[in-house]
């Protein structure tokens, strides 16, 4: 593992933390959709395993993570302050395919992370895209802040709020289906299982042009433990850390 130093820390809403980390090789090599494995402390073996996190963006020798505090590992990470160091491994996994003439990005909650990186890459490459983001609760709207430097974003919230669409991101997306699904377009999605299943239903038949980034529990993150299995359409299992985390919808069973 490599040592990365925390350069910036930001709390986003109540449940999210953004960490800007300095580690050259990851910052310069990471592609949209790839992830890193992170351990808060070297000499401590509880929690034991590193935790997987997608890369939000890179800049020079720095890369940024955005995570939700959901358990002990993320709790410890949320306590790190600028100047602290942590152990990182990566970049890991297979990212999103970038060979398209236009893209549709659909994110649910923290699923926004890898898609922000993708959107920034598309902007660089002048590939047009539309970005849909959905959150459950008002307070998660804080997440939208990381989308500031990304052109227009359509967002939804399941709680009633002004400015955005009230409902799920799929509900929002459905309304624009025909307008966005034209020509050589790819759809990129990341979010809770329920949302991805709904999307799969909605896009039945189009599985070839849909890429989803998936989460599973991971052991190693680099392909040795076979702990991150998910069922293949064709039978048998994929390993999310090495075959993914990005898959064509046609390859997986959600």
């Amino acid at each position, binding site marked *: 593992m490599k040592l990365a130093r925390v350069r910036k820390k930001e709390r986003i809403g109540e449940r999210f933390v953004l960490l800007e980390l300095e580690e050259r090789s990851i910052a310069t090599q990471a592609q949209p959709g790839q992830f890193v494995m992170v351990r808060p402390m070297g000499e401590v073996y509880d929690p034991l395993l590193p935790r997987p996190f997608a890369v939000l963006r890179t800049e020079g020798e720095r890369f940024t993570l955005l995570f939700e505090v959901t358990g002990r590992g993320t709790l410890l990470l949320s306590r790190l302050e600028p100047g602290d160091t942590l152990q990182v491994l990566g970049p890991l996994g297979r990212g999103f395919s970038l060979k398209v003439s236009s893209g549709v990005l659909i994110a649910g909650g923290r699923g926004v992370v890898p898609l922000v990186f993708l959107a920034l890459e598309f902007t660089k490459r002048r590939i047009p895209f539309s970005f849909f983001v959905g959150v459950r609760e008002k307070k998660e709207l804080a997440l939208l802040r990381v989308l500031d430097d990304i052109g227009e974003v359509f967002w939804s919230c399941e709680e009633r709020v002004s400015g955005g669409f009230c409902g799920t991101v799929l509900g929002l997306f459905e309304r624009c289906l025909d307008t966005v699904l034209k020509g050589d377009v790819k759809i990129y999605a990341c979010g809770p299982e329920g949302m991805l299943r709904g999307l799969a239903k909605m896009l039945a038949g189009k599985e070839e042009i849909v890429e989803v980034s998936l989460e599973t529990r991971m*052991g190693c993150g680099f392909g040795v433990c076979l702990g991150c299995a998910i069922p293949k359409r064709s039978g048998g299992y994929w390993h999310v850390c090495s075959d993914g985390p990005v898959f064509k919808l046609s390859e997986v069973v959600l």
Partner: protein
Amino acid sequence: MNLSVRLGRLTLQNPVVLTSGTCGYGKEMRPYLDLDSLGAITVKGLSLFPWEGNPPPRIWETWAGLLNSIGLENKGLERFLEEDLPFLENLATCVFVNIWGKTVGEYVTIARELDKVKRIDALELNLSCPNVERGGATFVSDFKVLERLVGEVRQATGKFLIAKLGPQVRDWEATVTILEREGAEALSVTNSFPALAVDVERMSFVFALKTAGLSGPAIKPLALKMVYDLVGMTDLPIIGMGGITTAEDALEFLLVGAKAIGVGTANLVNPSSAMRILEGIKQYLLRKDITDIGEVIGKVR
């Protein structure tokens, strides 16, 4: 400083071995450590035919421990020879292949096939897996079967033969006697411990098969005792493993008499663990002004 250790007729350049299932087929580790600097690498448990393994979830973290229910997933002999052997051919360290079968016959056949592969230095028999001909009891739990299994595998191969044992063993004395008689040349101890986890929020077992194998730092003091006891029972060289995470852990096993030590879960925690452990062992010998690791092995009995 001499770090090499002798396991019977097999010599390792140093006692640090990567254990089966935690270092893939070697390739995957390359970016993170210099395999050639280690004593040996043990590839993922291999069976005659490809095996899917268990449905997810397959891993769960416990206090300083890891529960796994991988279910021995592997690509099978044919693809291994085709896809992975070439990389292993170019390694300068010892290559152990961990093998298993659903029946005695499968063990024997894969052993015979691998016997033809010059590059492979040793075969490690995983004896902690279910025997389908005996309703899924592990092969160690039935002496008759164990005897046949090891005996027939011994006939099938001239390779250095390692028997890998775990907590399923009920009578260690008797088991070891059989293994010695049937021609095992070394013992790997220990495999993971049968354990259980409940997902309290979902109110269900974490794993489809309910129980899973516990490994990692948590089990070290238990594994160390198993190895210590075993060293007193047999002259077979022992590869001690179970929770080894630091050089101090490794040295504990060597001091009670293990001839080599296995690094497993620590590879998942940090893929360069094995090199850090080897480095730490060297530091220790320097600090203690010991020139031959042989002076450490079995010093505390």
